[in-house]
C-alpha cells in the first residue's frame, strides 16, 4: 500500500498511523457516548415518571458508565462499521480502514457482525465485499477527517424509505416519520434518534438521513424551517407513549435530525434512519505533519 499523499511535496500520513487512528476511534466510539447524547439521556431519566421507564434509562446510564470505566463495548452489537472521510482524502485510506477494522475486531474486541447476505456465512473479522462502507466527501481542508459510526442492526432494521407523490407534501412527510417510529415500537432500543432525509433520490434520501444522525443533539439545524420541523416531530413522537424500550413513558426519542436535498420535479423521496440510544460516533483529524487530533464528540465538517 502507498502512503497517502496530499500532493508531491506534502508530508505523508503513513498507512500504519491511519490504521492506528481507525482502531482508536472505533474503541472510543464503542466504549463511550458523546456528551450531547449523555446529557439528553440524563435529562430524560429525570423527566420520566413511571418506575419502569426510569429503570430502563438508569440501566442505560449505568451501563455506559461501566463500559467506559472498563473500556469495553457498551453494547454487544458493535454494529456495522460505517466510515465518513472528508477533507483532503485519497482512496488509499480505504485499505487502512479495512486493516484498522480487522485489528479492532480482535483487540477491542468487536463482535464479528458481517456476513454474506444470502449464505449468512460470517467472515469473522467484520470485513467483506463492500464492508466497511466508506463515504468520501473530498474537500479543500488541509487535513483528513475520519468519523466512524458503528451502527446497530436493531435500529437500522427499522429504517424505511417512501417515494411520496410531490402533491402529498409536508403533511405526508410528517405522517410517514410518525408511522415509522410507531411501527418500530420497542424494537430499535428507544429512546432513539430519528434521522430524516428529504429529497434527492432514493439513495440520497437515505444517505442524508444517516448523515443527519452525525449532527450532535445540541447543534441546531442551520435551516430554520427544518429546525422547526425537527422540534415539531420530536414533540409529537414523544407524545406517543412508546417510551424507553417500548415499555411506556415520555421518552421515545432523544432528537430528530432532518436534512434535505433538492430533487426531481416528479419525486418526493423521504427516508427515515433510526439510531438507538447507543448513538456511537467518534472522529479524528490527521494533519499533513503527522499530527492527529481526536474528538469523542465527532467533528463537524460541513
Amino acid at each position: 500500500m502507498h502512503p497517502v499523499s496530499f500532493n508531491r511535496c506534502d508530508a505523508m500520513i503513513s498507512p500504519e498511523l491511519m490504521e492506528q487512528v481507525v482502531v482508536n476511534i472505533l474503541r472510543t466510539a464503542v466504549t463511550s457516548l458523546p456528551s450531547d447524547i449523555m446529557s439528553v439521556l440524563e435529562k430524560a431519566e429525570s423527566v420520566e415518571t413511571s418506575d419502569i421507564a426510569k429503570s430502563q434509562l438508569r440501566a442505560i446510564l449505568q451501563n455506559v458508565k461501566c463500559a467506559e470505566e472498563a473500556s469495553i463495548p457498551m453494547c454487544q452489537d458493535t454494529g456495522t462499521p460505517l466510515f465518513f472521510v472528508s477533507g483532503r482524502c485519497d482512496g488509499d485510506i480505504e485499505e487502512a480502514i479495512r486493516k484498522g477494522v480487522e485489528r479492532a475486531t480482535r483487540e477491542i474486541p468487536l463482535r464479528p457482525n458481517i456476513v454474506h447476505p444470502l449464505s449468512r456465512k460470517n467472515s469473522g473479522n467484520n470485513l467483506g465485499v463492500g464492508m466497511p462502507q466508506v463515504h468520501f466527501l473530498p474537500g479543500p481542508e488541509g487535513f483528513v477527517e475520519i468519523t466512524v459510526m458503528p451502527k446497530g442492526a436493531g435500529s437500522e432494521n427499522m429504517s424505511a424509505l417512501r417515494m411520496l407523490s410531490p402533491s402529498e407534501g409536508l403533511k405526508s412527510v410528517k405522517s410517514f416519520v410518525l408511522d415509522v417510529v410507531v411501527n418500530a415500537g420497542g424494537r430499535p432500543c428507544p429512546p432513539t434518534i430519528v434521522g430524516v432525509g428529504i429529497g434527492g433520490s432514493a439513495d440520497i434520501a437515505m444517505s442524508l438521513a444517516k448523515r443527519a444522525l452525525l449532527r450532535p443533539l445540541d447543534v441546531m439545524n442551520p435551516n430554520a424551517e427544518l429546525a422547526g420541523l425537527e422540534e415539531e416531530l420530536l414533540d409529537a413522537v414523544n407524545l406517543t407513549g412508546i417510551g424507553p424500550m417500548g415499555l411506556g413513558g415520555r421518552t421515545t426519542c432523544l432528537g430528530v435530525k432532518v436534512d434535505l436535498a433538492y430533487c426531481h420535479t416528479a419525486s418526493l423521496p423521504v427516508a427515515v434512519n433510526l439510531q438507538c440510544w447507543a448513538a456511537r460516533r467518534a472522529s479524528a483529524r490527521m494533519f499533513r505533519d503527522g499530527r492527529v487530533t481526536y474528538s469523542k464528540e465527532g467533528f463537524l465538517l460541513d
Partner: protein
Amino acid sequence: MRTPLSEKDVRSLRAGQVVHLDGIVYTGRDEVHVRALEKHDKGEGLPVDLKGAALYHCGPIVKDDDGGWTLVAAGPTTSARMNGLEPRFIETFGIRAIIGKGGMSQPTIDAMKNFGCVYLAITGGAAVLAAKGVKRVVGVEWLDLGMPEALWIFEAENLGPLIVGIDADGNSLFKKVDDEVRKNLTQVRKRLDVE
C-alpha cells in the same frame, strides 16, 4: 428464581413484576431456532436439554482466552425476529422463559399461555450490565454459526433486573403500551396536522 424453571414457577409471575435469574441460561437467536427445529424434525437430539430452560435472545461478545471463554458484553437482541419460529420452539422443547427485548407477537404469546412460559424484558443495549449477571461461560455449541448466532451456555448469577413483559396468562406490557400508543395517536396526529 433459579433455572431450570417449573411450570408452577412461571405461572406465578405477573406482567410488570421484576425478577432476577440464577442458573443456566442458553442463548439462541435466529439460527439456533432454525437448526434446533431442523434437528428435531430429523429426529436428532440437541446438544443441550432445553426443558425448563431460560432462552436468551442474545448474540454476545465472547473473548477466546487461552483455555476458556470470557464474556465481554451480552445484551438482548430484538425478539420479534424470532416470532415465526418461537411458538413451535416453546412447544417442542419446553422452555419456560424467554429473555429479550421488544416483546413478541400473538402466536408466541398464545404458545406461552398454552405451555407455560414467560417473556422477561432486559434493557436493550445494556450489555455490560447484563454480562455482570453472568458468572461464567460454561460452554458453546454450534460455533460454526458464528459468534453472535452460536448457542452459548451461561451460568447466570443475579441476572437482571428483568421485567416480566408477558406473563403465562398472556398479559403483555407491550400490548398495554401498544393500546395506549394507539389511543394517543389521534391526539398526536392532530398536533402534527396530519389527520
